[in-house]
């Protein structure tokens, strides 16, 4: 009887372990699934942004609006930013944060990155200028949010399917 109880207890422990492992695996799949759906949303935003390709950028620059957020950057900063942009079929997939980080406030950077559907990457730039309430709001909603996306700060997208270390660059989802 004692043996029976031991065997039953052992079976129960085994069953519990298997159930716990299955639950952990399911949780992992759900977690990765959540990330995958966020990634899909991010790609939709990038693909459908006002500027989603080099050709669209050229068209935008040809008749640049007077209130364009690009004009918030200095001449050197703008040149540096524009020459750093990388596009593929998913829209903007990489850029240098250098000029944005050194010249813009949160609200200004938000306006600029929204042109590319890339405003979420503000969360990777925690030290931008805060000058007013809007900046504070944006800082709160982006920097302090734990959004699950594949934006890799300090790296650049490399064709051979790797992210390569590159100062002040961001390798974005869709790379």
């Amino acid at each position, binding site marked *: 009887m004692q043996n029976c109880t031991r065997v039953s207890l052992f079976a129960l422990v085994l069953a519990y372990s298997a159930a716990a492992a299955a639950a952990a695996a399911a949780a992992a799949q759900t977690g990765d699934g959540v990330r995958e759906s966020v990634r899909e949303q991010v790609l939709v935003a990038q693909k459908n942004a006002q500027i989603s390709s080099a050709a669209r950028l050229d068209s935008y620059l040809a008749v640049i609006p007077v209130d364009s957020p690009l004009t918030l950057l200095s001449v050197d900063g703008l040149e540096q930013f524009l020459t750093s942009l990388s596009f593929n079929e998913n829209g903007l997939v990489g850029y240098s944060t250098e000029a944005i980080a*050194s010249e813009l406030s949160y609200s200004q950077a938000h306006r600029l990155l929204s042109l590319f559907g890339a405003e979420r990457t503000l969360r990777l730039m925690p030290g931008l200028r805060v000058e007013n309430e809007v900046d504070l709001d944006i800082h709160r909603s982006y920097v302090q949010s734990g959004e699950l996306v594949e934006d890799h700060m300090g790296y650049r997208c490399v064709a051979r399917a790797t992210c390569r*270390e590159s100062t002040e660059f961001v390798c974005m989802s869709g790379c």
Partner: protein
Amino acid sequence: MLLLEWMLVLGAASSISPVSICKADTYTQLLKAEATTLNASARDRIEALSHIYVAGRRASRAVGCRNKDRVIEDQFKAAALFANYVPDAEPLRNALAQYGLLVERGTAGAEHHRRLIGLHVARGDFAQAERLRRQWLSNVPAFPRVFPGRFPPGLPVYAVQADGSLVRDSIRLSGDQVVAIVHPRCGHSRRALQNIVAQPAYQGLRAKLVLVVPNGPHWAGDSIAEWNGLHPELPMSVMYMDKRWAAFDRQQTPVFHLVREGRIIETGTGWRGAGEEVSPIMRALRLASD
């Protein structure tokens, strides 16, 4: 990097004549070199960056140049960038010295604080990074606490605890191990790991896999904690930048190194989707047929 120290000494000795124009473009040159060496080997890339850094350092020491604001600014940014690539003490010392000058002159701003904090994070000095963060950038999330202790023998890493704090640990290299340099915010790394975790074909590989995140100026503690929470059987730890990691390519992710008795015998780089990058490693481990 003894060569680097020697080049600096020689450079200082040969810079006795005044230079009429003080160049302050070392940082810009380093950024350009980063871009042009994107597909070069880790070693060639460091060599290219090293030449530029050393030449700029030499020029900055020329009479009449060393106290100019733009030279100090340039040297600070150049040293902070280069220090991310090599574990040597010199670029860190230089960055700290130039930062001291910027503070002394009242020209240090948020951007300088951010870079210095990033440098301390990259070097694994979270206590210094946190001290500076509290002083200058209190709106930035706090850095993790590191438990007191020393790194055990092996490849030094920080083990990330459930509450985000860090414990000094190491990877002990005996037998066969696959040390994967990955990053939770790198899409290629995540897709590689999702496949390796889910597919039965990689069961043998999983048993030998150790995941290491190369530390850099941008702390990714939340993403690492998220991965570790979802995959407790295959956690990521954080590389502590040290010469013991010199043989490993830490500049890109994902990179898979098969290490046998402490020596790298096979390396696979990237993840295009079908897993061909790890095939040679699987074969060497006799986990796949030829």
